[in-house]
């Protein structure tokens, strides 16, 4: 289990010494959320209606930005070979990498979203719920995205390919994530949406490290 934290700390440390990558994804999220009111107009009712969707799409695209580099760097400098040859189970190392990816590209979005939600005229309840859906949904994005990143490893133009592979799989998360906030504002409870998000998260957490390991072994052969 120790090795899991070793890998998480390693990836966080690497990212902190290469700050531009993390910051550019965050900045992208902020810019996307800020562009919508400019383009669509500043009618409060309209903004309140599209707000959750805008923030969710922004979060989804922002979390994709760092995906292509999830395994790519380790692949190029040979560190991935050492991970495959490690006596530790590969899925545990992969889970560490996915966790670090979420801490860097998912968690900051969860924290930033309520602030950006304010400028989209969302109510306090909606903001709290939005953060909760992102908290449940962004780890799913990291888990599914990691499978895409592992499958396209070493492929030329892998970045575009990841988007094509992974975006359709992101759809359920998007539908239920953004839908939860809309359900709340239309008077229905968000309970069902949250349950489904959790039901997406658990199998994703369970299967993703395993699928990534298999894909990485194939990529390195």
């Amino acid at each position, binding site marked *: 289990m120790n090795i899991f934290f*070793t890998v998480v700390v390693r990836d966080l*440390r*690497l990212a902190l010494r290469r700050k531009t990558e993390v910051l550019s994804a965050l900045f992208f999220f902020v810019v996307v959320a800020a562009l919508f009111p400019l383009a669509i107009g500043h009618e409060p009712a309209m903004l309140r209606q599209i707000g959750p969707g805008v923030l969710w799409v922004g979060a989804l695209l922002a979390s994709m930005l760092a995906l292509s580099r999830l395994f790519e760097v380790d692949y190029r400098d040979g560190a991935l070979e050492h991970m495959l*040859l490690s*006596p530790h*189970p590969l899925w545990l*190392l992969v889970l560490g990498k996915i966790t670090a990816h979420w801490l860097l590209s998912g968690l900051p979005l969860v924290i930033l979203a309520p602030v950006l939600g304010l400028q989209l005229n969302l109510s306090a309840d909606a903001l709290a719920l939005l953060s909760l859906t992102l908290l449940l949904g962004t780890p799913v994005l990291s888990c599914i995205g990691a499978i895409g990143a592992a499958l396209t490893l070493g492929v030329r133009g892998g970045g575009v390919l990841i988007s094509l592979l992974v975006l359709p799989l992101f759809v359920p998360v998007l539908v239920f994530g953004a839908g939860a906030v809309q359900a709340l504002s239309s008077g229905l409870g968000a309970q069902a949406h949250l349950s489904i998000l959790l039901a997406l998260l658990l199998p994703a957490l369970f299967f993703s490290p395993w699928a990534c390991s298999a894909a990485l072994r194939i990529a*390195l052969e």
Partner: protein
Amino acid sequence: MSQQLLEVVDVSCERGGRPLFKPVSFVLSAGTALHLEGDNGAGKTTLLRALGGLSSLAQGQVLWCGVPVAELAPNFKSEWLYLGHALGLKDELSAFENVQLSAALAGQVLSRDQTLHALAAQGLKNRAHLPLRVLSQGQKRRVALARLQLAHAKLWLLDEPFVALDSDAVLALQLLLQQHLAKGGALIFTSHQAVQLGVDLQSLRLQA
């Protein structure tokens, strides 16, 4: 007769569906080394990677201490160490952090003193805490050698370990390999140079 560690039986590899070399068989016992030779593209790296478990064998069997590798528990890998063309070192991390991390991945916990001592032995005493990107190619290889120096692994699989080293470092590496063999380790390496290890060196030439 010393203990028999690795036995390779009738092994060959493919690349793109085409066999790379005629099947090879050899036995490595404790304290012996094998120099893998062959022209460019003969399949030296492929064979090393396949032995290390990174790719699959086209045919044949590998036995570790008499047991087929496929039947062993995964932790036997901590007794093997593979070092390829790519060193697996991170440019953003310092030499010190790199050595500790790659040891941790290989299932070995190093103390601060052990790590610093090994780096000092490779002539990197004053550079232990610099990020790796400011070091030269040869110095990076020396960081990898510091890692080797600390390894407990019994079998070392080294792909072109002498590349990019200055003459001092070549001597240091030869010494390191000799110590490893003297401790009862085994070694397979590829090199285009003639290597003196002071022990009887088997050599194997891969032929198409």
